[in-house]
């Protein structure tokens, strides 16, 4: 606030009648509370209720029981699904964080050195980010296709290399899915890292230069420590986004071949909408909720103490 306005405002505010100092908050928040309550909170609470029933999408038993809970968590395929989810999330989050940071560093350097093309690179990554998940899956399916029109294999063939079974080799397919997810998701990390880099006080770099620090030393001892909270916040956000991703997978592999790319969110979707098992789906949703909450808390524990944001 400019000092001139502030100083003129103080005596005026003091002269205001008391009722204006304590405005009624409720009417302002009411629309938000109503919408979230009716279309968000109520369903969330209903998830907890449904988890204790045997309800299906077609109706079914509404009596309360804990057997759904125990049976769903004891399903033989669940450990495999969780393993796939962990691999997908870990690989996606680390690649997005690393690539996003690398692009941001190069773009910032490029802007300082007035290199050509920094805006083009940034914008291209952001365009990929705006592509809807389903469309992203379809696009990558065309790229990974093993027919002549597959956008990757036809390049390999042109260079005389052997074609790769991107989507049908069960050992490889997860990496294909991760690549497509990194393509769509990296821009977010890039933007957050870029903003955080821009916020670092240039004086720190001047001091480092006076002390004769080399470029890698500046990166290790100035840039990365300064980015710590931004990196952690970003990791929380992209971990949750990745855990929730399923539209891009459903249109790319549908979870296959076999179950090799069926992540927890896709599995939940299948349990509810293919098997009509509402109660089982509710249990899995809660499991998802617990996992994202747990991970968020783990990351938050690494945040510097005393610093609010």
């Amino acid at each position, binding site marked *: 606030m400019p000092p001139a*306005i502030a100083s003129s*405002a103080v005596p*005026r*505010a003091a002269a205001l009648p008391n009722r*204006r100092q304590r405005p009624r*908050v409720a009417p302002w*928040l009411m629309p938000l509370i109503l*919408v*979230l309550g009716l*279309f968000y909170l*109520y*369903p*969330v609470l209903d*998830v907890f209720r449904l988890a204790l029933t045997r309800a299906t*999408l077609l109706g079914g038993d509404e009596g309360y029981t804990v057997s759904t809970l125990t049976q769903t968590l004891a399903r033989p395929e669940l450990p495999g699904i969780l393993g796939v989810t962990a691999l997908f999330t870990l690989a996606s989050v680390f690649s997005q964080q690393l690539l996003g940071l690398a692009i941001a560093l*190069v773009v910032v350097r*490029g802007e300082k*050195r007035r290199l050509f*093309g920094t805006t083009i690179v940034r*914008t*291209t990554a*952001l*365009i*990929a980010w*705006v*592509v*809807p*998940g*389903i*469309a992203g899956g*379809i*696009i990558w399916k*065309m*790229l990974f296709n093993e*027919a*002549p*029109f597959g*956008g990757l294999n*036809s390049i390999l063939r042109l260079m005389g290399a052997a074609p790769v079974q991107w989507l049908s080799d069960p050992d490889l397919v997860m990496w294909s899915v991760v690549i497509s997810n990194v*393509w769509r998701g990296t821009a977010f990390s890039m*933007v*957050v890292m870029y*903003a955080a880099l821009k*916020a670092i006080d240039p004086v720190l770099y001047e001091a480092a230069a006076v002390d004769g620090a080399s*470029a890698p030393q500046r990166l290790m001892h100035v840039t990365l420590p300064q980015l710590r909270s931004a990196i952690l*916040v970003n990791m929380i956000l992209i971990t*949750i986004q990745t*855990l*929730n991703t*399923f539209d891009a997978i459903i249109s790319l592999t549908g979870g296959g071949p076999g179950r090799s790319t069926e992540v927890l*969110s896709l599995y*939940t979707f299948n349990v509810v*909408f293919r098997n009509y098992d*509402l109660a089982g*789906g*509710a249990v899995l*949703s809660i499991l998802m*909720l617990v996992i*994202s909450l747990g991970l968020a808390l783990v990351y938050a524990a690494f945040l510097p103490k005393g610093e609010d*944001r």
Partner: protein
Amino acid sequence: MSAKTRERIGDLFSYLFMLATFVFFAWPLLWLLSLALRTRKEVFLGVSRFIPKAPTLENFAMILSSDKFAGYLWNALKLSCLSALGCLIVALPAAYAFSRFRFRGKGAWMMALLSVQMISPLVIMVPLYRYMASIGLTDSHFGATMVYIALAVPMVTWILKGTIDGIPAALDEAAMIDGCNRLGVFLRVVLPLSTPGIASAFIISVIGGWSQFLVPFLLITKESLTPIGVGIFQYAGTQNDSSIQLLAAACLVSVVPAIVAFLALQRLILGALTAGAVKG
């Protein structure tokens, strides 16, 4: 090695990295465009016809002239714009209150709002279908719009609060001295001054609504009400390799509006998003 040569070598590596990054992010969309412009014969010639010899707009004409796709696009536009508008109506007063009023538990409310954002939409989808069916809101654009709003409103509220925080509170007070009440201040002072924030929040929720898949997939079964996100998914399921050029065209048609909307307001959107992300 002098500092200057070192900088030059650094530039070289920067260029190489930027080139690789550009190819990685641009190639899928360029390939999509290339396929969409080809005839059926050329599709099977692979990368050697990256620039088609006989480019054709036939595929786009076919997609856009079908009633089905026109309907998908219109429904998506309607749903995403209406829900973005609804989002603003719900979020703006709340953002104003969060920015200006002091009340008990304000921080807790803001954190609660943020944690709502962390719940996967999939979690609420499980009970939502039966709930919406019981109040008669399935197969209606109104019902879907309300759910879109609920999904987007926490983030939009945070963004708008950030915008309103940037407007000096002294302006509110000055207007109140001049006889405005709170509502008057909100409508005549704060809203006009937060236009950039409102515009970016609007576009962000339009883009979010455009890419919605889960909500309409679940709540809308009538083909005539289906938006593009679900439409393209179902269309892809019915296509095979011999019509891949049509699928590419359809896919491009579904992607381009979101890209255009984003590019139009790129600067504003990025500003609003990073403010939210760095704070949140």
